């Protein structure tokens, strides 16, 4: 059982953010990112929502895909751009400073995959729905949505255990950073409701973390808003 809410404490220092999250999560988030990268085909065009320091975008680019990565935090965007320059990936990864509420500016059906790790849980419920709606819109038919995030566990016992672990971390995080996160509920149902086929839902961290892979049907179904 584990909660990523502490990451809000580390966001103030983008330069050491990945290393610290990695250390505290005991390698979990890195393994998740590798799983996501494995699902990306070389030569495709990928959108990363909330790219943070650009670690995942770098990994995807190394696999041979091109990435449009964006984040609402200017500090994170600066760090991500530095990283792309350092690693010579400026051609393959474009980093933009924008919030999910600007996703309506992205062209419809223009990406083969949309990825987001630990992003939706930072948004309000309305923003989450908005981001997902636009993620579906910008996917090409047959394109895939890959989401990894903290979720509400499915059984009462696990929910209680999760809260017992999360609440003290949440309290410290809040006191220091005046911010927190919100575990997602019913993610696969939400995605099905948006017209996607859910291919995979893999839970980890005592059922409190999910990697969800969904596909936009080839025949563009009526997408419910």
């Amino acid at each position, binding site marked *: 059982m584990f909660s990523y809410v502490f990451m809000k404490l580390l966001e103030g220092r983008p330069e050491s953010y990945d290393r610290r999250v990695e250390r505290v999560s005991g390698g979990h988030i890195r393994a998740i990112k590798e799983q996501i990268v494995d699902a990306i085909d070389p030569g495709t065009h990928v959108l990363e929502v909330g790219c943070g320091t650009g670690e995942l975008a770098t990994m995807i680019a190394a696999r041979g895909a091109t990435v449009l990565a964006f984040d609402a935090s200017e500090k994170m965007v600066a760090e991500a751009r530095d990283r792309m320059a350092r690693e010579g990936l400026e051609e393959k990864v474009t980093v933009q400073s924008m*919030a999910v509420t600007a996703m309506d500016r992205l062209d419809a059906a223009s990406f083969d995959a949309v990825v987001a790790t630990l992003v939706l849980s930072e948004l*309000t419920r309305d923003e989450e729905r908005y981001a997902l709606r636009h993620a579906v819109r910008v996917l090409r038919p047959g394109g895939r949505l890959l989401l990894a995030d903290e979720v509400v566990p499915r059984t009462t016992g696990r929910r209680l255990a999760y809260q017992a672990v999360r609440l003290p971390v949440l309290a410290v995080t809040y006191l220091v950073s005046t911010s927190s996160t919100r575990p997602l509920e019913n993610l696969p149902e939400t995605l099905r409701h948006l017209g996607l086929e859910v291919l995979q839902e893999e839970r980890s961290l005592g059922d409190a973390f999910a990697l969800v892979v969904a596909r936009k049907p080839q025949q563009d179904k009526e997408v419910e808003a």
Partner: protein
Amino acid sequence: MNPFKAVWGLLFRLFPCPIQTGVVRIGNPGPDSPVLVTCNFYTTVRRLIRTLKGVDAWLLVAESKGVNVWCAACGNEFNTRSVVSAIKTSGIEDKVTHRTVILPPLGAAGISAAEVKDQTGWHTRWGPVRAKDIPAYLAAHRKRTEPMKRATYTLGERLDTALGSMFPFYFFVALGFLVFAPHLLGYFVGTLVATFLVFIGLCPWIPGKHGWQKVLLLDALLGLALAATSVWPVPADIPVRTILVMAMVLFALHGGELGGLSSIWASDFDPFMARLGLRSIGNTRFAGTTRTDLLIGARVLTHYPEKCSSCAECINVCPIGVWDRNEHKKTFLAHREACTACCACLKQCTEDAIEALAA
């Protein structure tokens, strides 16, 4: 109505009390009804709903991390992004046919009206400062009278914000007495109530520009009284000296950050921390922000008349009335000395005609 949040939002206001963001229906609103933006602090939303009884409107609750409009805007938690997000993600676009939001002017330190327009296409208007003026403002075809534009700090507002912000301190000190010196608890509560009512009731008239100056004056008087107890006899059955010391400490508690409790006086705490050289505690920043720099005199609010288009946005958002227009309808900095450095004018100016210039 959530009883826990009602008590929390009333007495533990130093901590956030969030409510879900999105659209709240007030009365029976239709596609032409006004859209009023507010923060997602539970108490603010409840009070608005209560105050707007009889009005048909859409209340657009935007993210402020569960903090009130003024504090969240000054701390940049209630900002352009919150309002843009609320407009674009709440579904309000499908509920109304017009495209105008009424913004709370105490949020102007965080929300740029021009950027909201730019990012959403929605027009913005600044509503009245106080919720209780909203029905009259709407009835007058969204015209604000002068008093509707300016913040006040009435007795009711003082009692509300002082108790709401300071209660945790009072509570924990009382708890300390209960555990370690229960025989003094009654005296503590009595002194607390008396000093609270005296200070919060009379603070606008107690000499001193800053809260701490008012506290020093009162504590000096109490110090004299304390000294007098060694000359004049005091009742043996009442711990007079203890009560006087309690009162001195309590005045410091009530008044130490008096400015920060209101929207008409500047914070004393932030510049104090900045002078100590403390940059931040968690996400709360002190030294190096434009606001604290203005308060400690490291920067000066500067107006460039040659760049100014006299659009009057600075006049519209300043809760104090620091800006005014001269006889030629030109905007000028009329009352710099009253500025609380909320930076709302800087946020709204699209002509770079206002700057916090390094001193």
